[in-house]
């Protein structure tokens, strides 16, 4: 399943795909992913708690959401750099959209930037779990009841 052609995340995805296409080998793409990880604002220590953990990843991942003027703002972090790069891309692509659009979020585009390994069955759980969490938090915020609003 891919995103519908007028999905607001698509221009951002195109931008990400274009960036990664500048590298013709995997080391360049991973270096760029690691740069994404380094530019992600670290999640405040108080949010790095069990309630915000995304399970199903080999490393620890935390994801929090809050609503601002009807749009869902995400913050995320991981203790592993590569995973942190992947969540940074998810945040970059889906942060600030409306809950209904986040409900359609997917990870198919990760294959287009050479990260298909992370979509393989053993690791898919991790990335899938992150996107499921995005959707769950967005749905909760739509009901005016985000499950883990930062306080």
């Amino acid at each position: 399943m891919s995103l519908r052609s007028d999905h607001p995340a698509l221009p951002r995805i195109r931008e990400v795909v274009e960036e990664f296409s500048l590298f013709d080998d995997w080391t360049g793409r991973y270096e760029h992913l690691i740069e994404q990880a380094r530019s992600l604002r670290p999640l405040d220590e108080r949010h790095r708690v069990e309630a915000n953990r995304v399970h199903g990843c080999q490393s620890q991942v935390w994801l929090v959401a809050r609503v601002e003027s009807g749009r869902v703002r995400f913050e995320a972090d991981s203790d592993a750099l590569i995973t942190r790069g992947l969540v940074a891309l998810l945040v970059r692509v889906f942060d600030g959209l409306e809950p209904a659009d986040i409900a359609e979020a997917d990870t198919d585009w990760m294959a287009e930037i050479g990260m298909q390994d992370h979509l393989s069955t053993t690791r898919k759980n991790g990335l899938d779990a992150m996107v499921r969490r995005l959707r769950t938090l967005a749905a909760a915020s739509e009901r005016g009841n985000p499950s883990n609003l930062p306080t």
Partner: protein
Amino acid sequence: MKDRPHVAPFDPERLRAEFPALGIEVHGKPLVYLDNAATTQKPRAVLDRIVRYYEQENANVHRGVHALSQIATEAYEGARARIASFLGASGPDEIVFTRGTTESINLVAHGFARSVLGPGDEIVITHLEHHSNIVPWQLAAEATGAVVRVVPIDEDGTVDFDAYLDLLGSRTRIVSVSHVSNSLGTVNPVERFVRAAHEHGIPVLVDGAQAVAHAPVDVRALDVDYYCLSGHKMFGPTGIGALYGKAEALDRLPPWQGGGDMIASVSFAGTTYAAPPLRFEAGTPHIEGAVGLAAAIDFLGAVDRDAAAAHEAELVRYAHERLASIPGIRFIGTSPHKTAVVSFLVGSLHPYDVGTLVDRFGVAVRTGHHCTEPVMARYGIPGTVRASFALYNTKADVDALVEAVDRARRLLS
């Protein structure tokens, strides 16, 4: 009976050629396979044996009078005999086929829960056990009110033997220890564990999953009551393993799964059960797995095991020496008695990051807690990168590992 195979001079390069999977490429690079503690690759002889079984011998066992069923039964029971002699058991009746070490331990733990354990009884395990030698005992303890007692380990990953002696007492009903730690490589002095337990009349189970591919095991010399192994960690197929039990140790266990083949007679008034080992083998067994495992044992029988063990010890020494040149390297598990496993961290880098990039360079290692979360908690780490060796690995594999780890480190720093 098969003739005793000719034992050729040990030559890892020649052995490698017998493993088709070692010739493949991953990410466009020749595979360097260093995840043997998770599972070993399979020699051509094992693959051929499984195909031959299905092409020429396939029938259900223990059932038919027809010729093919008798051939299948002979192959299956012949495999049991082969495992018995491989382990030095008194006879094939002391070998129960299982799905692997995990099922073997569950079988014994279930039996103890049903027939031995009661409130306040104690089960002694060590801190370096695989989850499969922890959780079955926790389940048994939950069901019976028994308590799991844990022998601590030292900083280098050696089990504290004095603490073990202190834990043995009048309430101890069983000791269950691994022969070799899967995450640290520590070799436990199993014979000393057994001798001390037997002085108190306590039976001992040994988890041999990580031992049998690396050194000859003689269950009677060790005097263990139960010994567990997995076929796939010793060049055999997945889904097949064995539980060795002394005749009286198996006889003590009640049935655990009901079905065909495990009964003496069935009626609605009451059913009587077969004697071990069939008592524990309900349903049609993993016949092709059993004959494949027997072929793996024949493969090992043609190897100079002492030379193979010396070769693996040299690989571990060489890996430690070469990896030590990488800035920030930290070895987890440095017991003087270890085999085939090198577990490490690189500076503050997450093992998942290192493992992911090392894989891209064509080197297969395992990352994570290796199903030994208590060991990781003991060292206060999220996991390790683990390279684990088999007799077909070479120093060139170690060189590839070191180069891959160092390149990963540079990418991540």
